[in-house]
């Protein structure tokens, strides 16, 4: 094998431009594949982090009947908090959120919303609930930037909301938009109006009740609450996970296209080599190499492209990817409206596993693609090969 490596190196260096063109194409594949996977990883990590920090904390307890995908279930999915739960809330281990359906009338238009009541003093999630502390008679409300944009609402605006309380009675009130927050977590923003928990409980005739309880990431809660079900990160991050998996499938298609292009170049070079270098193959055999050794030599030569490509990719790709990781990739403004958790700027996350894994995949694929055409050598007649006779 060391002989094959030595001769392959000589052949590659001797082939000059042909080698470097292939190596460059392959190195581009390395860099783009790593970059693209890094972006997905970065997005995944940021989306998980933002969702945990802003929405789900250390996990959530859902009232037994609560189903976020069934708006009809909302009416009955609330329960009074026990003394022990109230104590945990006071200790900062939990924060309750009451969720109900309502209608908002911005500029006279009807807009269905989810009304969410949150304790303005909570510190468990990063949602700026403290903005809901009000000292005058207005009912303070806050909405996300996307919601504000869609409904033409700005800070200081009053908007009418109408709801049906626990007894089925319709009521309406004007709330004042005291804050418009910016969050990467779209589910906190789109179609949601946040008001103080106690106001919400009073409006709904549901004193001391909540729909979900968010646990603190650091302290946690750990116990079980009768009538409530704990939902862990795995379940609560399902949507993000599925979205990233879906994006990853798209990424794999991109990966396959990119690899195919690079492998086509290698395959083409190998096939051409077998035809154009028949005399060389014959000479190697005459000098004492077996056909198997020549196959190994040509395969190593083809596979060595990926080693050189990895080195070249390291030379120009490392600073390029490091720069990208530091400045990030700014998402276009319209991504805000996509309804998914995505930051304004995605910072790619590269891991050793990603780099090594990509290198290994490219190396194995290149070796296989390099080997396939060389099998023809075993069918060559050395006497014809020496004369360069096309076989």
């Amino acid at each position, binding site marked *: 094998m060391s002989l094959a490596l030595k001769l392959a190196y000589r*052949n590659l260096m001797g082939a000059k431009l042909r080698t470097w063109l292939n190596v460059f194409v392959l190195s581009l594949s390395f860099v783009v594949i790593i970059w693209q996977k890094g972006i997905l990883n970065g997005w995944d990590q940021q989306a998980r982090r933002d969702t945990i920090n802003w929405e789900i904390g250390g996990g959530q307890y859902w009232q037994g009947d609560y189903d976020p995908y069934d708006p009809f279930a909302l009416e009955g999915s609330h329960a009074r908090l026990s003394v022990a739960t109230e104590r945990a809330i006071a200790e900062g281990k939990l924060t309750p959120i009451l969720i109900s359906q309502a209608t908002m009338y911005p500029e006279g238009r009807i807009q269905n919303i989810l009304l969410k009541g949150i304790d303005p003093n909570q510190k468990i999630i990063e949602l700026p609930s403290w903005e809901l502390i009000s000292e005058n008679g207005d009912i303070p409300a806050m909405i996300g930037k996307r919601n504000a944009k869609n409904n033409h609402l700005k800070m200081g605006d009053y908007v009418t909301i109408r709801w049906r309380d626990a007894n089925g009675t319709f009521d309406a009130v004007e709330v004042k938009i005291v804050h418009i927050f910016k969050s990467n977590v779209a589910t906190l923003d789109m179609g949601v109006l946040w008001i103080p928990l106690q106001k919400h409980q009073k409006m709904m005739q549901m004193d001391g009740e909540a729909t979900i309880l968010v646990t603190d990431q650091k302290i946690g809660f750990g116990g079980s609450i009768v009538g409530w079900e704990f939902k862990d990160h795995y379940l609560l991050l399902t949507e993000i996970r599925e979205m990233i998996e879906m994006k990853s499938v798209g990424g794999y298609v991109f990966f396959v296209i990119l690899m195919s292009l690079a492998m086509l170049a290698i395959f083409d070079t190998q096939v051409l080599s077998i035809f154009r270098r028949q*005399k060389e193959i014959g*000479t190697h055999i*005459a000098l004492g190499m077996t056909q198997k050794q020549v196959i190994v030599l040509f395969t190593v030569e083809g596979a060595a492209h990926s080693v050189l490509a990895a080195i070249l990719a390291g030379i120009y790709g490392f600073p390029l990817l490091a720069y990208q990781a530091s400045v990030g990739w700014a998402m276009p403004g319209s991504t805000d409206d996509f309804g998914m958790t995505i930051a304004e700027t995605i910072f790619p996350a590269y891991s050793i596993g990603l780099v090594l894994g990509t290198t290994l995949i490219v190396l194995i694929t290149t070796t296989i693609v390099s080997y396939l055409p060389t099998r023809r050598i075993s069918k060559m007649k050395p006497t014809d090969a*020496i004369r360069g006779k096309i076989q």
Partner: protein
Amino acid sequence: MNNSALIHITDLVKTFPMGKREFTALKDINLSFSAGEFSGIVGPSGSGKTTLLNIIGTLDVPTKGDARVIGRSVSDLNSKDAADLRNKHLGFIFQTYNLLQVYTVFENVELPLLLLKIPSEKRREMVLQSLEWVGLTDKIKSRPAQLSGGECQRVSIARAMVKSPQIVLADEPTANLDAKNSHTILQTMENLNRELNTTFIFATHDEKVIQYLRRKISLEDGQVVRDETIKG
């Protein structure tokens, strides 16, 4: 059977398929070559010279009969053993030189030694010695494309001789060379034959080569028609 013979060929027949029929390239060949011979297989194109040389060089096998090279029957060798025999005991010189274009002169001559796994220091010494035999020590960094035809063939000789093989097989070595270069090449090979006692076997129809031979084996239609010693 001559026991001291390096090569011993007995009743050798070689046929090739030609469509539904067979073409007999060599018929009933019986020959022996001893150490230190400077012989040539001569004859017109298609007489079977190259086929015979290929069989002696273990690149091909007889259809019938036997060819023993350095005590080994060519028909019995598997590809690994045949490669081993070529690697250790045989040198080849081709009509079109067959130098590797991307290698330097030094690297071309070094190649057989790499296959023999000779250490680098020793390898360098042997390559330089071989290039000195053919008078090309000043061209070690040149590539074949930068050399004349005569120089290329001298590199080819150096490559064949570098491992001091027992037998060198030269197929039309002067076919692409002018008269002056042909004589230079032949003189070089004759000197090496005398100095190192290497057996040289040529396949040729070139009169310039024939005048250097000490033994001339004439082939016609795949059969030996004459086997004569020309010089003492």
